[in-house]
């Protein structure tokens, strides 16, 4: 399969005839697409970062991200 004129036409046609709301609804509800709710950082520059309290024990604190990765591995 190649992205030729015919295939492009079919894809263009589908998206031209569906509303964004309808597409969002079927994508999430029917096909299990996952919405990306991450926050977009538009400001790329920080003048200063304020650290109020630092505990060295935080270094070994429970890490949610690590745990999430482990869960994926166990679920595979």
């Amino acid at each position, binding site marked *: *399969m190649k992205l030729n004129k015919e295939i492009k036409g*079919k894809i263009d046609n589908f998206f031209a005839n569906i509303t964004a709301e309808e597409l*969002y609804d079927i994508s999430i509800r*029917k*096909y299990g*697409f996952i*919405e*990306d709710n991450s926050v977009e950082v538009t400001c790329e520059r920080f003048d200063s970062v304020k650290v109020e309290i630092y505990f060295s024990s935080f270094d070994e604190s429970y890490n949610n991200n690590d745990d999430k990765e482990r869960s994926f591995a166990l679920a595979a």
Partner: protein
Amino acid sequence: MKVKIEGFHGTSLENAKSIILNDFKLSRGHKEWLGDGVYFFIDGISNNPSSQAEKWSIAHSWNKIEKKYSYKRYSVIKCNIEVDNNNFLDLTTSDGVEVLDYIIEHHTSKMKEIGKKIDYIDGFVINFARKEDIISIDIAKGNFYIKFTKERINQINRRTPNCTICSIYNPEKAIISKELLLTKEIN
């Protein structure tokens, strides 16, 4: 133009018997691979796909909760597959990737209209494209990293693909012949 593929499917002996007598049942929920379909190991990254199908049927038998094999006797089925090139989404080539990219580009810009962002997963996009009849896909092919027993025990998570697999969405149409290649028992 027709594309011919030799595919190897690993499963329990019981399932294999049913497949030979009846037909394949589509696996669902393979969101991270190529969507809902019947999966085969094929030539590509590895030149020994039958061995990968064997390793897969062993790994697949292991029940992590009960800590035992759910079946001891496993089989590999060899199939001759045929597909029209126009209905063959080959994601190991730039041609195939371009098609998927084009669909995602359209989807993304439509979502932007309502301020939404989607975390795109290939398997979901393929299911969506097929089932909404956007394009006709009979078979999709891709390279993936798949964990067999050794990789699972040692928790080896790599990004480099080790397998080429294909997913068939209409097995009755695409599978020309099938045979039970081997039956063995897990030690």
